């Protein structure tokens, strides 16, 4: 079933640069959909449309629709705060908030009004386990999160998103700053997560795209060049440009 339906979405930044050109895409639920392509292709911009984080940058013109569960989230009447709880996001550089590990995990829940200690503790453990970092931090939950390594911080950020029990998880090059071992841990966690969550990943390399994708979309300069359900895009690309990129002829 399709969780997200993007319907002829176009977007322009205030300085006139075009970021997305008439993109239409259906994203299936409970799977990893990968958006890949060279830098500047509009992948991050598209992710940021899904949780309306683009509201905070200066976006001039946008047309088209983004339907999540049948509702157009670009509608100005949308409750953005509720939307962002439903659509969690992990950034390229891990951004732990300036507080303890536990504080990072419970922050979103406390914002949502959860005060019961038992529920908070439960969510901390559950989401840290899901992000495959529980064993590494369970004895030092009250230490500042900033003291963790980059790979650990990124998984704490993932756990922090999961603590809110979102339905969709957006990941914008989540492993671009991580070593191969940490990257492997994050990818393994994603494979577990896709059983329950709809995951949209912007990978930092074609190799990662190939490793993680259930479905993949190739973006070039704001345009969706090709989308294929399943792994076909890597083995049997239909578009010449996709083939050139996947085989490493450019990019």
């Amino acid at each position: 079933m399709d969780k997200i339906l993007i319907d002829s979405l176009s977007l322009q930044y205030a300085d006139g640069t075009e970021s997305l050109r008439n993109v239409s895409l259906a994203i299936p639920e409970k799977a990893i959909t990968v958006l890949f392509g060279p830098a500047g292709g509009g992948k991050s911009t598209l992710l940021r449309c899904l949780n309306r984080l683009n509201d905070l940058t200066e976006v001039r013109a946008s047309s088209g629709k983004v339907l999540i569960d049948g509702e157009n989230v670009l509608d100005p009447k949308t409750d953005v705060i509720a939307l962002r709880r439903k659509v969690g996001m992990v950034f390229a550089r891990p951004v732990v908030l300036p507080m303890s590990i536990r504080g990072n995990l419970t922050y979103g829940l406390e914002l949502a009004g959860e005060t019961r200690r038992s529920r908070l503790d439960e969510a901390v453990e559950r989401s840290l386990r899901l992000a495959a970092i529980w064993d590494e931090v369970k004895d030092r939950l009250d230490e500042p999160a900033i003291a963790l390594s980059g790979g650990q911080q990124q998984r704490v950020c993932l756990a922090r998103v999961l603590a809110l029990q979102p339905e969709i998880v957006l990941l914008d090059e989540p492993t671009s700053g991580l070593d191969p071992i940490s990257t492997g841990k994050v990818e393994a966690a994603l494979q577990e997560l896709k059983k329950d969550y709809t995951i949209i990943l912007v990978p930092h390399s074609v190799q990662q795209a190939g490793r993680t994708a259930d479905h993949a979309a190739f973006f070039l300069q704001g345009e969706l060049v090709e989308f294929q359900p399943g792994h076909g895009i890597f083995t049997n690309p239909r578009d010449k440009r996709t083939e050139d990129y996947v085989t490493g002829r450019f990019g």
Partner: protein
Amino acid sequence: MQKPLHWREIIITRLIQASGYSAILFVAAIFLFLMREGLPALGEVKFSDLLAVRWYPIEAYFGILPLITGSLIITIGAMLIAFPLGIATAVYISEIAPRWVREILKPLVELLAGLPSVMLGFLGILVVSPFLRTALDLPTGLSAFAGSLLLGGIAVPTIVSIAEDALDAVPRSYREGAWALGATKWQTIWRVTLPAARSGVLTAIMLGIGRAIGETMAVMMVTGNAPVLAITPGSLFAPARTMTATIAAEMGEVASGSTHYHVLFFIGIVLFMISLAVNIAASSVVFRAKKRAERILS
């Protein structure tokens, strides 16, 4: 092969070195002078008499306690006004204001920080203290509170300017991280941006205190300058006198080398110690923050 002598290089380096050393030398000289002129006061007046509550130098009463409490109550009052106002303004400029408002406000605030305090003293005498007298039904508007109001006004631009820089330096990604978790603008400011900018905000507050406690002219013009021990809450609305105002008012008329003269310098030493303590506190906060940042980077 002989290394050629670069005379120009040597002379320029020496000149820069000399001006660097002279700056240190001047500060040291000022300090020594202050000590030489001020410390004899301890030999001429009993220490317990210095800590008495009566300042009446003509009759040889040299109790500096009223002056210290006067300075403190006015500074504390000023800070109670300047903290919330300064921090709130900084948050507004950095986090909430649209870009064009920010581009007008920021230079304006920096301009205010450079305003000569005598100008504010004028304002205090002509506007603030008559207003306080009628509004609060006081015998005179020239009170510690008027001084606090003015000093608060003087400290606000300093606090705003530095705190705004600190808030501005918080990476955008921190805010986006909080927004992506469903935090509102205010929740993000209160729980993420302000704590992340904590050390810069503390520095701003410390420098604000430094600015307030060292201020002379504006305070002298509006506080009424009565050396009364200020320890009850009510004394905020009575005339008071600060250490700086005492030095400024009496130094010109005192016989050089007299006891009174030495005591005035001793007040200078006390003031110097307070400023030093505030500065050390400020820089240790900054230093600690820097050390933490270095540890994270390593």
